[in-house]
């Protein structure tokens, strides 16, 4: 799997440089569950990180969609006298 070695990036300055990749990989690794489980810590290739990132963003968007759906239903049917409504009201009026 030598196709994605970092040495390729050193050639042109408009590409991602090594320092930033290292930094980013460590940052992204903390935020992305899939990569965290990957044992081969420093050999994760840049494209794999980007790929996982894309998947992660898509998942988050999907979750946001589902949650918006749920929220829409819940806010529509919320009973104005329930304790939940009171909490929301107090939070909103702050």
């Amino acid at each position, binding site marked *: 799997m030598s196709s994605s070695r970092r040495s390729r990036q050193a050639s042109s300055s408009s590409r991602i440089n090594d320092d930033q990749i290292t930094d980013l990989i460590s940052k992204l690794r903390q935020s992305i569950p899939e990569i965290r489980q990957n044992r081969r810590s420093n050999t994760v290739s840049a494209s794999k990180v980007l790929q996982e990132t894309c998947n992660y*963003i898509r998942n*988050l968007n999907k979750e946001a969609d589902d949650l918006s759906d749920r929220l829409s239903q*819940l806010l529509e049917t919320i009973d104005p006298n329930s304790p939940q409504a009171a909490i*929301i009201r107090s939070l909103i009026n702050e």
Partner: protein
Amino acid sequence: MASADKPINTDVPEKDVFALHFLQSLSNLRRQNTFNSPEKTNDRVKKIKKAAYVSMARAAGGTSRLWSRALLRRAAKETNKVVRFSRRKKRVTWLRRRSNRRDPVEEEEKEAERLRNLVPGGGAMETSKLIEETAYYIKCLSMQVKVMQCLVDGLSPK
């Protein structure tokens, strides 16, 4: 030209900041009577989703990040509001697009293109900037999702 040694700052605001902005957006929607009107469910959901993304952009610093700026601009366009942003170097967009078309061969660039389509305003960014914005965007997005999940949990009947 590229900032070689600058560490990427990905500290995001606390969850409360996101929660507060989101609740404010929701209360605005409520004031516009979105929840009680006989609107179609789909419209309601779309409004909530848009409120989520806009409030996330505001919580994350408004116009200080490229992606949040792009989000706010997109939202403002949809509501036909007049938005004033300071002029940024639009030249970068043009240059970046040209070099993209020339050689999308390397695997990283291909993935980076896909990423560009997912991150708001990504099309205008150089790859290294894109990565920095993405790290921040991911954190904010997951924070926003957490806030929404908490709200849903809190509102669901026990």
